[in-house]
């Protein structure tokens, strides 16, 4: 463990006293030259980095009108100052969203406004010095691009977009971040963030099928590269690898099984995540998304369903169509793309799943809204579906559900502390401290209402909580996948213990099925 103290949890989240420079030491590892070059970025900091950075900045201002508006429009009202979980967890004033933006804004003023060119000292304009660049690298890697601050900004300034632009500029001069860039390279090479080759993926899925059959007595399949399947499921590769993610994957498989819908995973698109969004690279984002489109066309599926991954759902829901669309080869009767929660929610509302809620009676659940799902996407046709669908699913499969405090959920949700490309060991202190507001909200319902577990629908959130909850005194198994709860509750036809004849694989006749 790195050398730092886990903050004490309060009864509720208080605005901390200022601790200037408290996180000045926190920087992620720099990307190695081969990770940079694989993505078309310079291997290391280029000699004329200053001029190149300013030129890139100018290019982005021309390309993204929003960026120029965000640079110009802030009036310094301060509404955002106490809204960032990293500020609340660290007290470092540079983690106030306005201060983070100002790191870029002062350079903008110096080079792109008349007043800043002539009277820099009067308008808070500053040159992009080595020290400023260093601050950029430090503090734009202390923004998880969760966009909570933008909800409270009266002008809607989106700090996520600013931090994406800053990272894009830094990549273009050879100062990229190891964690993100190594991973994007792996997706392009092997199809997923983990770098799982096809034989390993096939063996892992076969192994899971074996486990499910051993446990339930039912042959539930996890098909891979199955042409002609109805649905292509793209899901974060953590679902194949980590816990509790894999329990969610098993849940999807059981839902498809009971729905009688044919589905497949794809080797070529064995990753829903798209880390290119975190570094603001449109071209990398397009390439990563294109793999999914290509897999869907090659396999001839009619629908694409996205598994439990927060930012993947943002990319899919908000960007796929313009990035790699149109998806006119898919069945127009279904949303393209569709979220696994939309799929399961629909089945539940039609009574098409057989559920035994008591299977989750050993837990009292709360639900963590993942930032990208909550603030950058939707589910279903109605506003707010992204908040209601997951909760309605949980309530349909669990008897005990309690929401955390209103200001910490829905579009006011706190980031888990590991989003936006920060889920890396070299930022562990930031991750632990950034989780403090969420942990305080969790502690309140744990202490007062007996909540034992928290469900989430994002691979990053799940890994982050599994890592940081123990620092706050909660077991790593307190974070669960939403579809893990579904998996526990679902009663498959012919399942062991469901009828009197557990040895027999014959389908049960007791319950009516969905057809």
């Amino acid at each position, binding site marked *: 463990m790195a050398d730092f103290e886990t903050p004490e949890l309060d009864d509720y989240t208080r605005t901390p006293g200022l601790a200037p420079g408290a996180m000045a030491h926190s920087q992620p590892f720099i990307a190695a030259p081969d990770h940079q070059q694989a993505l078309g970025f310079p291997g290391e900091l280029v000699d004329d980095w200053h001029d190149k950075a300013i030129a890139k900045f100018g290019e982005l201002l021309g390309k993204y009108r929003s960026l120029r508006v965000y640079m110009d429009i802030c009036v310094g009202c301060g509404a955002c100052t106490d809204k960032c979980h990293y500020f609340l967890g660290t007290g470092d004033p540079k983690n106030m969203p306005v201060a983070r933006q100002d790191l870029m804004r002062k350079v903008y003023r110096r080079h792109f406004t008349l007043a800043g060119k002539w009277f820099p000292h009067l308008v808070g304009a500053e040159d992009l010095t080595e020290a400023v660049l260093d601050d950029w690298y430090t503090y734009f890697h202390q923004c998880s691009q969760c966009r909570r601050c933008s909800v409270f900004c009266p002008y809607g300034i989106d700090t996520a977009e600013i931090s994406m632009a800053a990272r894009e500029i830094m990549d273009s001069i050879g100062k990229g971040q190891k964690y993100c860039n190594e991973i994007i390279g792996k997706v392009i090479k092997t199809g997923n963030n983990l770098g799982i080759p096809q034989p390993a993926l096939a063996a892992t899925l076969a*192994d899971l099928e074996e486990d499910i059959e051993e446990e339930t007595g039912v042959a539930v399949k996890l098909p891979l590269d199955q042409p002609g399947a109805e649905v292509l499921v793209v899901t*974060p590769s953590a679902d194949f690898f*980590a*816990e509790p*993610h894999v329990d969610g994957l098993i849940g999807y498989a059981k839902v498809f099984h009971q729905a009688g819908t044919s589905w497949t995973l794809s080797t070529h698109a064995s990753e829903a995540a798209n880390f290119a969004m975190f570094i603001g690279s449109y071209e990398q984002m397009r390439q990563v998304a294109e793999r999914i489109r290509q897999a869907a066309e090659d396999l001839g599926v009619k629908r694409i369903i996205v598994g439990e991954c927060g930012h993947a759902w943002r990319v899919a829901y908000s960007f796929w169509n313009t990035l790699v669309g149109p998806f006119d080869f898919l069945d127009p009767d279904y949303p393209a793309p569709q979220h696994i929660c939309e799929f399961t929610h629909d089945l539940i509302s039609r009574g098409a799943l057989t559920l035994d809620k008591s299977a989750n009676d050993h837990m009292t659940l709360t639900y963590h809204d993942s930032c990208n799902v909550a603030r950058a996407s939707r589910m279903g046709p109605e506003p707010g579906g992204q908040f209601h669908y997951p909760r309605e699913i949980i309530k349909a499969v669990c008897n005990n559900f309690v929401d955390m405090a209103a200001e910490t959920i829905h579009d006011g949700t706190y980031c888990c502390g590991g989003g936006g490309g920060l889920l890396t060991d070299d930022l562990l202190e930031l991750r632990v401290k950034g989780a403090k507001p969420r942990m305080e909200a969790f502690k309140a319902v744990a202490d007062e209402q007996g909540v034992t577990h928290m469900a989430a629908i994002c691979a990053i959130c799940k*890994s982050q909580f599994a890592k940081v909850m123990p620092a706050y005194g909660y077991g*790593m198994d307190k974070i669960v996948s939403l579809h893990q709860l579904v998996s526990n509750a679902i009663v498959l036809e012919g399942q062991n213990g469901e009828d009197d004849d557990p040895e027999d694989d014959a389908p049960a006749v007791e319950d009516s099925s969905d057809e």
Partner: protein
Amino acid sequence: MSYQLHGSTFESDEEGYITDISLWNEELADLIAQDEDIEMTDDHWEVVNFLREYYEEYQIAPAIRVLTKAIKKKLGPEKGNSGYLYELFPYGPAKQACKIAGLPKPTGCI
């Protein structure tokens, strides 16, 4: 970063994962483990050896569930769970055990 063993230098990345995995040997594993404050027991070695076998076959570390299943077969049901693996490797069986086994660090949302 690097490790020194019998006068030879073994290069590693910033986090202590050795860069040339073909140079791994058991003594080096002991040294990496020491650095991680882990005293290698037979159970630790079961995990490390399984990781290496799996990696040799698939060029990737096994999923945590695959690992727990394998350990269950070798060491018995009471040890075949991720809780036990975290007892052996407190920083996480995937990452810490891979480091000791000389394998690349698993990356992604894990």
